[in-house]
């Protein structure tokens, strides 16, 4: 690949993120591992070591001043205020805080969303997977995204939060609203998703009242019973975190569709996992590594620091490019190949590292494992039944549509 990096690195352009992006990352990793992207005054990090360093030093790299490239774009366009509408006043979202406050908020979330708690939902989850696969015919073409990948996380969210399945179509529109937030091109475009988000908040306030009167065996009820700083967790904080849990079903949708696509493209790996279903864990990790549902996050330097030999001033941003770090040949042998049995399966950056490690990681893996365990117990191959379309998004990565057929 020839040409100057300044011409090739177009991280604000969705068309940049096709298969050619990886050659650009290879050049960045060797020529400029902390590449200064002028239009947004942000350093793009492509080496695993730098991504790990930034993630695990929150005192040097803060989460409190923006997380996505689109937020930086909107700030540059003077539209920061429009963004605030998506935040609950006093909502104190854990991902936008630094330790030590971050730690207290995280304990509120992780204390409820424990692996043991999730185990209690395994039977319900398995049931959803069977139902969804029952509805897609043997050999008949269907859109894997719309029929399965988008549905499963919503059914799971409804069950976990103790919300009626009747509300699932509305939940779907709220997930889309949150994704639009990191996708829009102008402040005016924030108005429509903003209205849907207002509706989500009204819905959740009603749910909080309902659970306060009649607590159930669900996460909203256990958040309401949790304490923060020795007092009951305030409603705005519960609300902000429940909204996050619901809307982050979007990244699980992207993961599930990417796994289906990888298996459709690698019938040999499909045969391997059918012979040894224990390899499904490896398939999930490889998919996370090769096709991370979230491409990266921004941090802000709290003081002057050198990264990959490059001086970064206090207040300047860095952006961790997960798909680049995940193919760093210093960390993964044959980084572009998909190997279910890869020994370094857990080394990828896709759930982040350190204090902000993805709170939903366990849930996402559990959903992926349940779905594909059921799928391979029924079918021997997934075949593309048309041309899939990419999800056009700078931060989020996966398929908008994935037409497939399943065969025994």
């Amino acid at each position, binding site marked *: 690949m020839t040409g100057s990096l300044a011409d090739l690195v177009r991280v604000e352009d969705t068309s940049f993120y096709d298969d050619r992006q990886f050659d650009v990352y290879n050049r960045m990793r060797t020529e400029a591992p902390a590449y200064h992207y002028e239009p947004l005054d942000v350093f793009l990090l492509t080496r695993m070591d730098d991504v790990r360093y930034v993630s*695990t030093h929150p005192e040097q790299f803060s989460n409190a001043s923006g997380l996505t490239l689109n937020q930086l774009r909107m700030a540059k366009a003077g539209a920061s205020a429009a963004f605030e509408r998506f935040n609950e006043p006093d909502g104190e979202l854990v991902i936008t805080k630094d330790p030590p406050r971050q*730690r207290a908020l995280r304990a509120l979330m*992780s204390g409820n969303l*424990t*692996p*043991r708690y999730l185990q209690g939902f395994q039977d319900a989850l398995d049931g959803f997977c069977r139902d969804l696969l029952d509805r897609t015919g043997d050999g008949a073409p269907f859109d894997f995204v719309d029929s399965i990948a988008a549905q499963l996380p919503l059914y799971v969210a409804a069950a976990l939060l103790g919300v009626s399945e009747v509300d699932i179509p509305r939940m779907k529109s709220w997930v889309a609203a949150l994704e639009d937030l990191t996708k829009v091109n102008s402040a005016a475009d924030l108005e429509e998703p903003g209205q849907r988000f207002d509706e989500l908040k009204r819905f959740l306030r009603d749910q909080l009242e309902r659970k306060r009167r009649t607590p159930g065996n669900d996460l909203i009820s256990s958040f309401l019973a949790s304490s923060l700083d020795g007092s009951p967790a305030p409603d705005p904080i519960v609300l902000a975190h429940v909204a996050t849990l619901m809307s982050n079903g979007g990244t699980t949708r992207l993961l599930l569709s990417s796994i289906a696509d990888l298996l459709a493209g690698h019938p040999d790996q499909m045969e391997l996992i059918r012979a040894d279903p224990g390899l499904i864990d490896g398939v999930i990790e490889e998919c996370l590594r090769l096709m991370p549902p979230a491409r990266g996050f921004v941090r802000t330097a709290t003081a002057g620091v050198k990264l990959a030999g490059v001086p970064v001033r206090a207040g300047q941003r860095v952006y961790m490019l997960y798909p680049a770090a995940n193919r760093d040949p210093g960390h993964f042998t044959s980084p572009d190949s998909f190997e279910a049995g890869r020994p370094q399966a857990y080394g990828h950056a896709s*759930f982040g590292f*350190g204090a902000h*490690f993805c709170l939903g990681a*366990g849930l996402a893996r559990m959903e992926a494992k349940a779905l594909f365990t059921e799928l391979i117990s029924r079918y021997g191959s997934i075949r593309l039944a048309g041309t899939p379309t990419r999800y056009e998004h700078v931060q989020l990565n996966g398929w908008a549509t994935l037409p497939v057929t399943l065969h025994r």
Partner: protein
Amino acid sequence: MKITVDRDRCVGSAYCQRIAPTLFDLGDDGIAVVLDADVTGPRAAAAREAEADCPSMAISTGES
């Protein structure tokens, strides 16, 4: 070898439990607990792997 988990750093990823289920478990709060802190041989190697893969670098292994 002496295995310790920094409970303030642990983020409950459960990687250690997956990598070395006889050495680590998760408590009711979702935070890792060490089941057997003093190990040698292949189990020490598994503990070092858990230390290297821990996404929040909460595990330390050192000479006992």
